[in-house]
């Protein structure tokens, strides 16, 4: 059953897709996003240091997290006749081939403005050990009917 603005409560949760990360999934994201930064392709390059950061191998695009979170929000919103309006994210830990990640959303609050209804959603992405790799917040509009 799809949600409505009226029925939503703070604390309601949204489960996002479980996404296994592999060298192939990262390579596909390179082709799909045209982001061929060697961070995502070149193991030899990734043996080096980046200022104070050492990755030690290729990492997934941060925007791959963003795309997964966005997929979770849109699939949830479409079913409710609502519109994904905003997403802000921060990357907390690198994601590597072999990791499995999943975004999860939690309704933080609802707000009614002069012309519409809005739901604010806190988002986290965790890896297979439960470590948080990204966090953010989304805004979904439930148009006034």
């Amino acid at each position, binding site marked *: 059953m799809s949600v409505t603005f009226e029925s939503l409560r703070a604390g309601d949760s949204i489960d996002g897709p479980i996404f296994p990360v592999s060298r192939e*999934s990262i390579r596909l994201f390179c082709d799909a996003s*045209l982001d061929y930064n060697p961070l995502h392709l070149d193991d030899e390059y990734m043996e080096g240091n980046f200022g104070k950061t050492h990755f030690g191998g290729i990492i997934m695009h941060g925007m791959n997290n963003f795309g997964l979170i966005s997929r979770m929000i849109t699939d949830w919103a479409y079913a409710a006749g609502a519109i994904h309006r905003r997403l802000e994210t921060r990357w907390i830990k690198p994601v590597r081939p072999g990791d499995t990640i999943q975004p999860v959303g939690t309704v933080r609050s609802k707000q009614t403005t002069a012309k519409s209804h809005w739901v604010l959603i806190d988002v986290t992405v965790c890896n297979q050990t439960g470590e948080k790799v990204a966090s953010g917040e989304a805004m979904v509009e439930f148009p006034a009917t």
Partner: protein
Amino acid sequence: MGQTERFETDFWKHANLRKVWDDIVPGEPRKTIPYTLTREAIELYCASVGEDHPIYFDEEYAKRTIYGGLIAPPSIHILLMFACTPADDWMRSPGTVNAGQSWSYNIPARPGDVITLQARALDKFIRRERLFVVHDNVFFNQQGQVICSGRGWTIRPQ
């Protein structure tokens, strides 16, 4: 994979032409190029993140929705950022680390849209010895309507 045939995938190739952090002038417009978004590019992007909603693939379904036809996922700006910037743009500098992004969505991009980008660095700063740039980007369709707008924070290679 039509788009990769035209797109330079070796990000080292133009590395010496690109601005480093010191050269970046906040407020100065970046050179951008119009990009025609195809159904194939949308489908490839969808495959890379597992998007499977019929609004992106099934024309008959899409026609019956409030959108009246196929659309791209909002996060298609991930592709558009690279598609609309030239090979010597500093966003492609190897070692550029994405620290965070925020995007607002107005209307969806659609297959066949000719998309333009207005982009610039809005700010630059040093924090914990890292060189940051704040990116400011707005995508438009061929009717001049805003598709989406976003900020990004990147750490520049040094």
